[in-house]
């Protein structure tokens, strides 16, 4: 059956005629599996691991001891299966063995799943968790706060892994200035436990490290089990330096997560250990603006208040002074008027006196004139009377004369 591929390797001297391609080999394996009825069992028992939904189909690994085989429960069969498989369940699966030639992998195409209770490992996991809980290592009270801005981060992860790249990138994307010290450690396999513990302990002794980050990418549940080992959990829980652990995918949980001071979901989420520098700068700029505005407003309000007080004080002072001056002016005016009146009164009195004296003098003069006049009149009257008497005498003489003459004449 190997002859079909010989023509494709004519340029290579392999010292054999039995040479095939992967395609041929996989075809041969597929034929063997299809023809081998001994491989068709009613049920296969094992523990469910790495159970996930993909396009409506359930994929999981069926694990027993160190062995595992991939299983798939197609969507159209899910409703007919006795149960839905879940991680850490012990199940018996019925199905057909299938060889997937493109990848050379063997799977069970599951037709039914029967619950057989908890898996062996779930019991171990529960026991480990109980031990850690009894020692108080799961208590929230003992968790340390992470530094709000770590200067140096200690990273324990696998060298040259995607997890290392993702974690470093995530940290520097959020805070480019942060220094990172990396302790390489196997994250699965026989050396993983010792190297992980050693890595954590080494970084814990480094005074420059502000927070220790332990991370690895996703994988089969079985490969993550080292992170449920109590020695590693105790080392992580008992560090003086705050710790953060992110193992596997979003839905993977390990005991290392639970004893750590902080859990993040995946290596890509390691960045949440540090703040985002750009956000801090924006926050500080906003604070600066707010502070300046508050100060400016306070100064303007205070100056305005002072100006108002000053205006009021000035107005009060001016008003009071004006009132004083007004009062003084009124008083001075009154005194001036009084003095003027006194002066006028005095002058009037003097004038009156003078007038009175003049009047008296005039009266005296008038009296004198009157007296003179009276005297003159008396004298004139006397003269007149004297004259009249003379005239009367004359007249009488004349009359007498006339009479005498008349008498004479008559006679």
């Amino acid at each position, binding site marked *: 059956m190997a002859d079909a591929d010989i023509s494709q390797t004519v340029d290579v001297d392999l010292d054999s005629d039995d040479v095939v391609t992967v395609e041929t080999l996989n075809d041969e394996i597929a034929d063997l599996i299809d023809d081998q009825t001994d491989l068709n069992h009613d049920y296969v028992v094992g523990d469910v691991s790495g159970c996930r939904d993909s396009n409506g189909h359930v994929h999981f690994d069926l694990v027993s001891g160190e062995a595992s085989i991939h299983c798939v429960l197609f969507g159209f069969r899910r409703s007919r299966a006795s149960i839905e498989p879940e991680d850490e369940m012990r199940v018996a699966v019925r199905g057909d063995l299938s060889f997937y030639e493109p990848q050379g992998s063997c799977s069970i195409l599951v037709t039914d799943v029967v619950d057989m209770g908890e898996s062996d490992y779930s019991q171990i996991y529960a026991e480990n968790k109980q031990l850690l809980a009894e020692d108080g290592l799961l208590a929230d009270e003992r968790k340390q706060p992470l530094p709000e801005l770590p200067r140096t981060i200690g990273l324990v992860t696998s060298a040259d892994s995607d997890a290392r790249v993702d974690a470093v990138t995530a940290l520097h994307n959020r805070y480019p200035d942060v220094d990172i010290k990396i302790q390489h450690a196997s994250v699965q396999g026989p050396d993983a436990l010792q190297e992980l513990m050693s890595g954590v302990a080494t970084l814990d002794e480094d005074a420059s490290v502000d927070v220790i980050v332990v991370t690895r990418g996703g994988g089969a549940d079985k490969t993550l089990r080292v992170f449920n080992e109590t020695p590693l959990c105790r080392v992580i829980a008992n560090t003086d330096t705050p710790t953060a652990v992110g193992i596997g995918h979003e839905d993977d949980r390990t005991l290392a997560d639970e004893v750590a001071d902080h859990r993040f979901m995946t290596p890509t989420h390691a960045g949440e250990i540090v703040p985002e520098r750009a956000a*801090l700068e924006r926050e500080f700029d906003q604070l600066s603006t707010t502070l300046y505005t508050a100060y400016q407003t306070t100064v303007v309000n205070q100056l305005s208040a002072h100006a108002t007080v000053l205006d009021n004080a000035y107005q009060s002072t001016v008003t009071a002074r004006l009132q004083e001056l007004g009062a003084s002016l009124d008083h001075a005016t009154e005194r001036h008027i009084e003095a003027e009146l006194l002066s006028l009164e005095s002058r009037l009195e003097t004038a009156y006196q003078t007038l009175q004296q003049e009047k008296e003098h005039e009266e005296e003069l008038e009296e004198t004139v009157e007296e003179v006049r009276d005297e003159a009149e008396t004298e004139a009257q006397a003269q007149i009377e004297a004259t009249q008497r003379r005239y009367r005498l004359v007249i009488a003489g004349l009359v007498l004369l006339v009479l005498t003459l008349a008498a004479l004449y008559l006679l």
Partner: protein
Amino acid sequence: MTQETPISDKVDRIETIVETLENGDVSLEEAEELHEEGQTLLEALQDDLDIGDGTVIEQ
């Protein structure tokens, strides 16, 4: 506050200063002192941001 004072405490203090100023119950002298304290804290916060060189050290 010192350089070792946590960032959050400095931010809290600045926010308290802003609230005090906004309440308006401070004199001009007090306002100036508070503003200077806030400015000093902001400068310290800017200094706090410069924590390292972004070095990756493989051990």
